[in-house]
């Protein structure tokens, strides 16, 4: 958990107040447990009903129904930072670049912004740093003492087409290297061919390999093409024990979209109602602006409620978004629009 004990409030002179670190996962009055594997129930998979047009309509109008302004907007943008998996997943990543990312993860906002917003006591950091296996050790070292977990993409990321044994082994190695979170990809072909048992077995194997590390299951929604496929894959991943379900690798032609997110979030809700267990959600890829961050936060709040605005149940996979948020927050303070180069890059 990256979020430090939070203190109140505007002025440093106030007494330090300790606030519970995470809000319990509650849905419609029912306290949920953490997810664990349950037997595959094909009725839930086959019973999926998704009307694409209606989902698109809801996604489009939801954005128009919700907005936050001024201090509320600033607070929500801070929330987006707290729920952010600051990510670098490029072929040209280097140790130095990862260290730079980790430094930004510790101090996502410039000091004058933190001070200006009066949030020194929040000791705000991002939710996690997300890298390839090769940089797990570098990141763990760079983040030492910060409490920020390292997430490793794994299991043949991004296509997921290497032999299963190798994918499982890759997870083992990342966990051994210190990754506390593992973002794996599924074999998309299992979805196209309706091989739900194979998909279930695969994710269950990854879950077992991850051990204590949190497992985020990337569905590759851009590859799955239809919202019904997304919903079916979500169900299988959750039953196989996913801690989070995640939209995309960032490498597909289409990444996180609001309609796709809405469908996954609805699956999480139905799953919680049927099983009493909470699964987190991570949209990733293509979310670059502060405005988008607010749209997703509102979606989570309205569809699942406040607990899904905690990093324990919600993450953004993003690399460029932090810069835009920082600029927006500076604008909030100064009333002037800032330029990108004025903020330290990740």
């Amino acid at each position, binding site marked *: 958990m990256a979020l430090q004990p939070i203190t109140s409030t505007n002025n440093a002179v106030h007494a330090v107040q300790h606030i519970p670190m995470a809000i319990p996962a509650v849905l419609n009055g029912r306290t949920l447990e953490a997810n664990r594997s349950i037997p595959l129930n094909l009725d839930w998979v086959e019973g999926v*009903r998704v009307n694409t047009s209606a989902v698109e309509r*809801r996604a489009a109008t939801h954005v128009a129904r919700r907005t936050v*302004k001024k201090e509320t907007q600033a*607070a929500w943008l801070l*929330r987006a930072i707290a729920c952010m998996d600051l990510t670098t997943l490029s072929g040209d990543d280097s140790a130095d670049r990862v260290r730079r990312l980790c430094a930004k993860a510790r101090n996502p906002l410039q000091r004058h912004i933190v001070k200006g917003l009066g*949030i020194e006591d929040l000791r705000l950091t991002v939710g996690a740093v997300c890298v390839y296996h090769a940089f797990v050790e570098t990141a763990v070292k760079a983040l030492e003492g910060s409490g920020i977990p390292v997430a490793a993409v794994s299991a043949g990321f991004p296509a997921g087409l290497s032999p299963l044994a190798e994918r499982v082994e890759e997870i083992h190695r990342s966990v051994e290297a210190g990754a506390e979170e593992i973002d794996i990809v599924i074999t998309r072909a299992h979805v196209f061919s309706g091989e739900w048992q194979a998909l279930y077995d695969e994710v269950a194997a990854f879950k077992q390999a991850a051990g204590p590390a949190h497992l985020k299951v990337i569905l590759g929604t851009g590859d799955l093409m239809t919202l019904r496929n997304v919903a079916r894959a979500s169900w299988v991943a959750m039953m196989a024990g996913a801690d989070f379900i995640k939209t995309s690798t960032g490498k597909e032609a289409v990444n996180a979209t609001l309609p796709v997110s809405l469908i996954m979030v609805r699956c999480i809700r139905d799953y919680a109602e049927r099983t009493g267990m909470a699964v987190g959600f991570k949209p990733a890829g293509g979310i670059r602006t502060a405005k988008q961050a607010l749209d997703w936060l509102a979606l989570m709040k309205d569809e699942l409620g406040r607990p899904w605005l905690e990093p324990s149940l919600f993450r953004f996979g993003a690399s460029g978004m932090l810069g835009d948020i920082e600029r927006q927050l500076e604008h909030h303070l100064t009333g002037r629009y800032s330029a990108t180069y004025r903020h330290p890059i990740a």
Partner: protein
Amino acid sequence: MSIAEKFLSMEYGAAPEDPKEAVQWLERHQRRFEEFIGGAWVRPASGEYMTTSDPSTGETIAEVAKGNTDDVEAAVAAARKALPAWQALSGHERARYLYALARQVQKHSRRLAVLETMDNGKPIRESRDIDIPLVARHFYHHAGWAQLLEQEFPNYTACGVVGQVIPWNFPLLMFAWKVAPALAAGNTVVIKPAKYTPLTALAFAELAMEVGLPPGVLNVLTCDAKTGQALIEHPGIDKVAFTGSTEVGRIIRKATANSTKKLSLELGGKSPFVVFDDADLDSAVEGLVDAIWFNQGEVCCAGSRLLVQERVAETLYSKLRARMETLRVGAPLDKAVDIGAVVSPVQLDTIRKMVDAGVAEGAKCWQPSNPLPEKGCFYPPTLLTDVHPAATVVQEEIFGPVLVAMTFRTPAEAAELANNTVYGLAASIWSENINVALDLASKVKAGVVWVNCTNQFDAACGFGGYRESGYGREGGREGMLEYLTPKWLHALPAAAANAAKIEAPDEEEGFTRAGSPPGSNIDRTVKQYIGGKQARPDSGYSFPVHGRGGELLGEAPLGNRKDIRNAVEAARNAAGWAQTTAHYRAQVIYFLAENTIQRRDEIAHRLARAAGDKQATVEVDLSIERIFSYAAWADKYEGVVHHPPGRNITIAMPEPVGAIGILAPSGAPLLGLLSLVLPAMAMGNTVVAVPSEKYPLIIGDLYQLLDTSDVPGGVVNLVAGRPAELAKTLAEHDGIEAIWCFRSNEEATMVRAASIGNMKQVWTNDGHEYDWFNPSQAEGRWFLQHATQVKNIWAPYGE
């Protein structure tokens, strides 16, 4: 609250739309508005003003003129004066004005949206994203119709001066729906906005001045309902268009009964929202939000009656309740509010009383826990379960954010429950199975059907109801036709004033024969024709029918209200005719033609005694042609597919109106009767027809032809008697969906006034004598248009 605290609570803060520009506009007018008459702001004759207020705060926004009948006179005179020059413009010239209005609405869209929200209480999201964009779209679309008028409606002309009365729920949108087609068709307009919400109409009037719309083409009268009625009744008004309650619709129908004013009514509804067990339930829940919690439920076509398949009912209800908890009720100008203020304290009180009555009748009421604003007219989203079709809240329109929910087991039961209402405006159907959805779409009695969506509107797609939801359509080609009239119609001579006297006493007085003694033809027994069988008249009386020289030709059955009752029942029982294929109906009608050809000489011979040799032969020959015509039309009067914005098709499907009562003209006994019966029959309607009293014996020939032509029993029922008397029974009969009266003005007036029971469609000759011998006037689309009503089925697609 500090930012850190907000970071923890993650509540929505206030997100107010800045009303500054709209307020400045109000101030520029010193918050006092005159009427817009003859292109200028005119002080009310009364010198009096009324106020309009913001329902979310109760604060007065502005004063508006309180017009009286003098202002009505002035406005109608201004519109009348402007009419010739406006009509003399080319379609293109009118198109440029409409286009300019569309642009002007877009340019000032936010001011209009804010004003609308202040005056009506609807959330700014809706006025900004739905109402005002649709207003602009309506003017764009109708700029197009103005441009294409001469090409697309070559034989039509504008009605003249149009009087329009609009409601408060979508003030500017309803204004656009009324004004755009009226102007596009070349009419001039006097429009009365609702008392609660006059501001955007006045703001629009100002935009009209800015684009230089000629003075008098558009006049806006702000006044109370009584003065509004004076507008509708004004003899200088040629066409009346009204949107509002069914109750007021009835008053308007009655008030205009003695005129030939064209009338379109868009009235109330209690529209079903049907959810099958294979629906995407989460999406259906969002559909319900759009259906009943859109515009505070103050929507005539609101999906206010939820019908859910039994096995998913509890799941749906629980999803719905959870969703209701996240609906934000509050200041309408807040950009993150879902439900704003109810329009007025009166309306709020009505909603409360209806919900209380529902609970008193046994309904279970559920409302979310969110607090309402302390002041202002707010009502929470409400779900009533444990209701039954007999409950008041299920039958009557609440016009508030109140959903009533019932369950069904089978698709057949869904259809039965959906249609178990006096209304027929809209329906929403949710299923992932297209067969199931389209099957119900075809069965539901509603002018608009939304498959897996709801409350979708577009200028290209007609909107309007069946049954007591009114008649006429707004939008699209159907909507344009409401503001047009055939050019040849007004050139026709006036109809004969009175019906011929039937020489038979009232039943009560007993039977005393008058006239000549029985001649050689008396042995031919003509009966009524009901349900495919010849039937003796209930009265047991007959009346003599005389030839041109006064000679007795025979005796016709003297029908009474019981014969009509039986005939209507037979017609309703034959409703399966509507489900037959068009090809089948064509074959039956061709066969009717064939049999008529076989008996041509014999029929002509008999008809000659009443109509003369020359006319009789021509009439029978033309009748044969006419039968052929409608056999041809049976499978050719088809709908269109609209492509409104978005990934969606809208199927505009002409459907039969139902059981139609026909009062045949006296001019051409056979041809006149057939000219009305055939289009009705060809389109799948069933008919109860009353022949001319001049030669009712024609039904004897006609039913023999029907009998031998495989026309199913009950499709055409023929009842002879005193037309005026039978017309009244037909007009009052709730089982009759439309009545066509092609007789005298007196009978037409009576029929219009008597039609208000079930708000049946009335079509008359408008005081003209149709020339049944002229095919360009006496057959074709003009008739088929009246024999059908358009159902628009919205079918979004995409995977």
